[in-house]
Each structure stands twice: as structure tokens, then as C-alpha cells.
């Protein structure tokens, strides 16, 4: 007869720890109900409802032009992409042909937005494992991008340049003259931090092998953006060629290890890619109008998607010919990445939770709307 030792009979203490909704590592309120055995996560259930504003329902009260300002406020950090995706869907329903220059301008502001969002995230990510000086360096660089937004669009974060039929501001030649040198300085500053982000032993210790998601699992769970590309899947919504991406030379940034380090590398190199795309768009931007007058009311339904900093942003719009839309459905990338997060956490140590959660760049305002 096999005799069980005292150690084998001992049960591991199991408890449920509420992580959030207010936590130093979360810029927005999210709660994770973490079931832990000793210090090891066995289950993670996200709890939402802290910033649900019912913005989709506002389409019944605001006309389809005003809804541009509503969708921009789903999330400040990616407001350009929300408005761009919404406008693309309305323009498809109404068969509006947007002027070429406006499409280039949308692309430039979208990439500036991706750049500032990734720099914000890189700072927050550094902060999640206590690398305060790196956090400050990234946010110092980000200030230059916000200054560009302010000087060109009048606002630093919610730049509000998209309208149905084009954009509301042009980029004058003198703006382009100072914009490119500032971007060069931003690129130099980012490259100066490359060796720290990529090679620093403390960063690697906190990120390598943490929160692993392989490519097949990422696809199965519906992951998008850097979370998907960090798992070796070369999929980027910009490959569909919306705006002017079909004319720009770029390849998705892909890493294969599927851990927090891979997702960090993807976002880091995407900042440099955004700068390159802005340069290409500025160089190829044709002269011409920046918007067309949109007459009539939309009738029909359409889907649109763009690549937000966190991944694929999806809009479904249905219009019945009145000034208000019948339905606006928004699926933000953080919503799509939550199932991946739920499966990344089990098996990880409790101390790694902040880093793993931050690695998907969760945006709760986008998720809940």
C-alpha cells in the first residue's frame, strides 16, 4: 500500500484576490478577480462596468455628423482612429469620395496618434516594473508628438480632425518644414533608448517568458494588434490598404516569442515604423481639397475597420435614411484582447500580473464605451 507523506496531503491555500479596479498600474478602472494558490494564479476573471457610458446608444440622439465627436470620446488616446473608422463606414454607405489629400492627412494624424499612444504605453510599461527613469524618458519624448498635434490640429490628444467627407484642417507647407525635423529628433531620442528597452537585463528578467501566448492560441482567441503580432502572426489591418496604406511601403512588425517582451518589442519598433510612414505620407501628399460637402442622409449598413494602436478597431453602422443612425456598434481592440489576457494569467506568479496586464495595453474606456 502506498503511504502518502504529510507534504503530499497538505493542500495549497487557495484564495481570491481582487486586483483593481483602482491600482497604481492601471490608468483606468478594471478589476481582475484572481484565484491564487499560494502565489500562483489559477484563474482570472475580469470585472467591468466602471466606465460604461452607453455611447453607442447616443446615435439615437445625435445626428450622423455629430456622432464623429461622440466616437472620438470613446477613448482619447486613439480618438483619431475612432473617428476615421466611423467616417469610413458612413462614407461607404453614402458613396462619398474623399479627396486624396484628405486621405493622406488622415493617415499622417493617425500615425502621429499611434506614435504618441505607443510612447505613452512604453512609459507605463516601464512604470509597471518600477523603471521610473525610463518611464519619464518615454513621456518626455511623447511631449514632442503632442506639441505637433497641438500646433497642427489645435489639440494635444483629442485632435478632432476627421469629418464625414474629409478632414477639417490642412497641413500647410511651413508646418511640414518644422514637423519633419521634430520627427527626426523624436526618432533619435527613441533610438537612444533602444539598447535599454531591448537589452537591459532587468527588463528582460521581468518580461521574457511572462504571459506567453502562441500564434495559434492568439488567433483562436481573436487577439489583435501587437498582442497578435507579438505571437508571430503577421496581421495588421493596415494591410487591407484603407486610407493610403496601400501606397505606403511597410511590413507588419512581428515577434515570435509571444511573451511580454515580444509585445514590448513590437510596440517599440512600431514607433519607428510610424515615423517612417508619416515621412512617406508627407512626401507623397498631393495638393487639392481637404473635404467634400456631404449632402443627404445615410441609408444602408456597412462595416469598417482600421488599425488602432492596440489593434483592429471595428465599426458596424446601420442607417435608415433619417438624420440619426439606427445602430452604431464599436468593437475596440482591448475588448478583443481580453480573452487572451484571461488565458495568459493562469500559471503565472502574482507579482507578474501588472506586467502581463499592461502588456496587452488595455484600454477600458474603449472596451466598455
Amino acid at each position, binding site marked *: 500500500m502506498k503511504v502518502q507523506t504529510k507534504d503530499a496531503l497538505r493542500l495549497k491555500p487557495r484564495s481570491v484576490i481582487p486586483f483593481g479596479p483602482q491600482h497604481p498600474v492601471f490608468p483606468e478602472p478594471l478589476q481582475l*478577480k484572481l484565484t491564487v494558490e499560494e502565489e500562483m494564479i489559477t484563474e482570472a476573471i475580469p470585472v467591468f*462596468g466602471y466606465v460604461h457610458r452607453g455611447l453607442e446608444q447616443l446615435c439615437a440622439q445625435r445626428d450622423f455628423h455629430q456622432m464623429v465627436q461622440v466616437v472620438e470620446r470613446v477613448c482619447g488616446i486613439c480618438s483619431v482612429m475612432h473617428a476615421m473608422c466611423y467616417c469610413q463606414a458612413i462614407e461607404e454607405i453614402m458613396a462619398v469620395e474623399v479627396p486624396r489629400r484628405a486621405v493622406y492627412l488622415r493617415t499622417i494624424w493617425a500615425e502621429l496618434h499611434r506614435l504618441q499612444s505607443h510612447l505613452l504605453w512604453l512609459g507605463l510599461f516601464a512604470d509597471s516594473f518600477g523603471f521610473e527613469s525610463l518611464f519619464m524618458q518615454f513621456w518626455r519624448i511623447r511631449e514632442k508628438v503632442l506639441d505637433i498635434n497641438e500646433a497642427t490640429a489645435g489639440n494635444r490628444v483629442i485632435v478632432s480632425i476627421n469629418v464625414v467627407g474629409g478632414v477639417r484642417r490642412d497641413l500647410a507647407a511651413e508646418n511640414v518644414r518644422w514637423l519633419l525635423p521634430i520627427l527626426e529628433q523624436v526618432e533619435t531620442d527613441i533610438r537612444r533608448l533602444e539598447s535599454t528597452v531591448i537589452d537591459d537585463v532587468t527588463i528582460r528578467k521581468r518580461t521574457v517568458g511572462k504571459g506567453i501566448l502562441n500564434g495559434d492560441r492568439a488567433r*483562436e482567441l481573436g487577439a489583435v494588434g501587437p498582442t497578435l503580432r507579438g505571437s508571430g502572426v503577421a496581421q495588421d489591418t493596415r*494591410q487591407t490598404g484603407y486610407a493610403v496604406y496601400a501606397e505606403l511601403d511597410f511590413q507588419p512588425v512581428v515577434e515570435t516569442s509571444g511573451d511580454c517582451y515580444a509585445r514590448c518589442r513590437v510596440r517599440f519598433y512600431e514607433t519607428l515604423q510610424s515615423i517612417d510612414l508619416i515621412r512617406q505620407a508627407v512626401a507623397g501628399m498631393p495638393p487639392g481639397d481637404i473635404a467634400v460637402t456631404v449632402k443627404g442622409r445615410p441609408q444602408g449598413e456597412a462595416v469598417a475597420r482600421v488599425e488602432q494602436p492596440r489593434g483592429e478597431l471595428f465599426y458596424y453602422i446601420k442607417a435608415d435614411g433619417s438624420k440619426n443612425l439606427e445602430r452604431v*456598434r464599436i468593437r475596440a481592440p482591448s475588448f*478583443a484582447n481580453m480573452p487572451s489576457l484571461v488565458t495568459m494569467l493562469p500559471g503565472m506568479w502574482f507579482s507578474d500580473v501588472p506586467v502581463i496586464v499592461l502588456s496587452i495595453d488595455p484600454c477600458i474606456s474603449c472596451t466598455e464605451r
Partner: protein
Amino acid sequence: MLANELIIGLDSLLGEAARLKRDGYRFVTMTALRLNGTRTEILYHFDRELHFRHLRLTVTGDATVPSITPVYFGAFLAENEIQDLFGILFEGLVIDYRRTLFLETSIEPAPFCRFNVKRKAKSDSPAGEER
């Protein structure tokens, strides 16, 4: 009607979902649409190599829809959201918040719904209840 769309019934939903998964489609999201009367449409959006595929299902107010989460685990948030906002119940949801994903337990009417819905009566507590 959307391009590349298939109209399905309740009995063929799970089979279609399983077929799409076998064919390499990624689950994108679901959209619920309130129609006239007590009818609601549910659109299932999938993607393969950056091309959409949509399934369109029409249900009446009190119908219970089979959950596709046993096939696509990633659909659990979208189905819970529809339960919250439209009051349509999903059978077999792997993580069921029972209409508390975004709403407080005290809120009975579904915000996007013109008719009343009832919460599922089950003894065990929903996911994320102790907010």
C-alpha cells in the same frame, strides 16, 4: 445586406461556427440590432486573411440562443454584452456574468430593448458578481 453574408437559423448556428473555425476564421465580434416588434438580429463577424465573413441570425425576444463560446472562447464578452444590453440569453456561455458585465444587478430593463427581460434564475453566482 453586407457583402459575404450568410443568413442562418438557430439550429444551424453552432454548425456554421464550427465550420468557420475549421476553415481558419478568426472571431471578430457580434452585433445585435433591434428590429420592429420583439425581433432582434444578431450578426456574427469573422475574418480570414483580412476578409470578412458574416452570419446573420434573427431571434424573437424570449428566445435563448446557443452560445458559440464552446467553439470560439473569445466570444464570451460579446455574448455577455448582448445579454446586458439587449436581454437575449445565451445558453452554454463559458463565463456567464448574467447581465452584470456592464450593468448593476439592480438594473432589470435592457437599455437597447423595448420589452422586458428577466435574469436567469440560477443558484450559483455569476462571474464578477462581488464588484
